[in-house]
């Protein structure tokens, strides 16, 4: 593929044809906020926090999905860009519990001066009880920013199970199984790949959820041990998160050539066998 030349924030850059504005920004080390974007998933460009100003375009364009074109003139820190990014973060944080988001997200909130409280106290939120309907993971949709990542990971981007989708419309849109049935009645195979891509802690290992509820979750006491899953011959890399000599959750690196961050139920939740958790052992 050929290279194209474009201008970002006054600097000329070369970018691979077919790559996105976000790719180009990252190569220039321009920190661009993203919420619904993940390198292993198809861009859905719904959160709109990555928008940039493209000269000649009537509206801002999403950096995560817009492909580079020769001669594009892009501004990533104009007043309009800062305004929209700030508002997106404020609107989200005013309706969703974002307290478990990464420190990076909090950094963006500070950078853009997001003050979610300014819409007032009597505003609609997505607050609701946590859904605990199985022993492996919980769904706390009061933390859901509707980034579509879990739906994509459950669908054609990784698992092809299609147990969840987006239901409802507008502010009432939400992630749901068919007719909101519990996970045991749904098509869910408990691969946990939705947990792996969730950026807000809405989807969480039940072990982590229970420890947080008991006040014993302490990331400063956790170590991460890398190993290879022993269950089959695929060779998935596992990261065992261990606290006080007990495995509390399992992840896999996004950039691992075998997994791309995705596992199956055995790799993700089979750790229970290692430590014989539970009364019956």
């Amino acid at each position: 593929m050929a290279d194209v030349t474009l201008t970002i924030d006054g600097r000329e850059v070369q970018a691979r044809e077919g790559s996105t504005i976000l790719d180009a920004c990252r190569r220039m080390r321009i920190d661009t906020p993203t919420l619904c974007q993940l390198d292993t998933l198809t861009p859905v460009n719904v959160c709109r926090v990555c928008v940039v100003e493209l000269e000649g375009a009537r509206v801002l364009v999403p950096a995560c999905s817009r492909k580079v074109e020769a001669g594009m003139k892009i501004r990533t820190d104009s007043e309009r860009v800062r305004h929209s990014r700030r508002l997106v973060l404020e609107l989200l944080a005013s309706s969703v519990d974002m307290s478990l988001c990464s420190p990076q997200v909090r950094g963006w909130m500070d950078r853009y001066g997001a003050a979610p409280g300014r819409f007032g106290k009597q505003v609609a939120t997505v607050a609701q009880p946590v859904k605990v309907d199985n022993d492996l993971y919980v769904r706390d949709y009061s933390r859901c920013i509707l980034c579509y990542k879990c739906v994509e990971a459950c669908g054609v981007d990784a698992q092809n199970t299609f147990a969840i989708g987006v239901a409802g419309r507008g502010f009432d849109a939400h992630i749901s199984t068919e007719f909101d049935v519990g996970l045991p009645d749904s098509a869910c195979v408990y691969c946990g790949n939705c947990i792996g891509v969730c950026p807000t802690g809405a989807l969480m290992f039940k072990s982590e959820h229970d420890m947080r509820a008991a006040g014993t979750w302490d990331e400063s006491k956790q170590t991460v041990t890398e190993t290879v899953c022993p269950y089959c011959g695929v060779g998935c890399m596992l990261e065992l998160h261990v606290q006080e000599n007990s495995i509390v959750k399992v992840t896999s690196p996004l950039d691992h050539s075998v997994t791309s961050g995705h596992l199956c139920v055995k790799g993700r939740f089979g750790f229970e066998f290692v430590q014989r958790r539970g009364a019956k052992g």
Partner: protein
Amino acid sequence: MDIRTTGGPATAEEMAAVDGLLGEPQPADHRVVHGGRAMRSQRHLLLPVLHAIQDRAGWVSRGALEYACRRLSIPPAEAYGVVTFYARFAPQERGPVALHVCDDIACMLAGAKVVEGAHGAPCLGLCDRAPATLTERFGEAYEAVQTPAREAARQPGSRLLRRVGVVDPDSIDSYLQHGGFAALKLAREMGPAAVIDEVTRSKLLGRGGAAFPTGRKWQSVADAPVRPHYLVCNADESEPGTFKDRVLMENDPFALVEGMAIAAFATGCEKGYVYVRDEYPLARRRVGEAIAQARERGYVDFEVEVRRGAGAYICGEETALFNSIEGKRGEPRNKPPFPVEAGLFGKPTLPNNVETLVNVLDIVNGEFADTRLFCVSGQVLHSGVYEVAMGTPLRALIDLAGGLLPGRTMRAVLLGGAAGSFITPDQLDVPLSFDGTRAIGATLGSGAVMVFDDTADMRQVLLRIARFFRDESCGQCVPCRVGTARQEEILERMLQSPNGDGRADVMLLSDIAQAMRDASICGLGQTAANAIASGLTQLKVLNG
């Protein structure tokens, strides 16, 4: 695809409804699996199947949905997402009759009240009959009945409306007697390139609201190397206060069919769709029958299908409409790619509004004049569709509709529907043209002209618009999903306590408006703040 269904069996009635549309299922043979690809390729039939189920049973049960999913090879979670996206589908059991009462602006002004047991509905496109209702009776003989017209269709126009109330909309012979299909015959003699040239030369701008040059769009599709090409007639007329396409489809359906035949011929479209909103049962029936009659006589030589919307304003947005035809949630797509390159089913697509396509007849016949249909409603003597020349002053149009009711004075005009903006009484001389309205920061939009006199409660009007956008946002992107909700909340708060912290709230609304305009995916979010902003600044609704 391994589809897990745990919801229990569908009733015989529900299964009959699905099988009636898809044909009898293959006899089960669990040793081999047949037709997976064939089943999946029918995914686009999800909305028709859901309509078939609901028309028969009155609602979409879990068993029925899962049966449909097995027949179409669609994951139930995804299909449930589709059911719950469209306002017209009911995933809860209900009685054999559904009464939809329009409580949108024009009907609200006419005193509409949603009685107990009825469903409040956004604009039903019957503003000339306000207050309006739509009644659905479910069962084997499903029927949907709109509030009937109080007077015979008026013909205040000379060109686009000339056959309205004159031809028999059920008879192709009647249409032929009034010069029907002469344009198509001429077009076929001229050849595709010459037809596109004529359309381009006419400078016709799309009548759906976005005012894109029609000729340019046709040329792009004709030039697209990828096949097949699709023609999509956008008849999902849902902008509050707009009903011109309904009047055309109900009274002169063959003209639309002829316009589509010319468009398909000129741009090389192998297949066409007419996407008619669910709230227009009569228009849907008449267009469907017109297509059948025209096909029988050889005027339509390409495949055309009438598709039925399911209660979603957003599906008037062209890419949301494509997703809806494909059997998905009506969520707009990011552009580019544009429909002319990759539209319906990812193929080059020509999306045109009903009025745009009807205009093509006169262009080919050499009788084109730049007139346009306007839907005048609200507090005027004779609500209806009026055809006037572009550039006609707004005041003249309102006079044509009989003017205000006796003894009233003008308060405002909402131009372009909920996505448009308010005009004040001192701006009534604005010429109704794209440039004329732009000069005062307004837009013609879909041609909706809603008139308010001094008795109108403008606060309630603004709130209704805010609620409309909150209800109709698809929920995909953050600025619109949360922005429309916050907009409604803040407006409500301001109107309740006019002496409160008004200035801070005005700032908040303007901040939200700018982000919605700049960062929303589609035109709905980008325009969702227009009318409210103009109501607050132009009309000073808060101060009076």
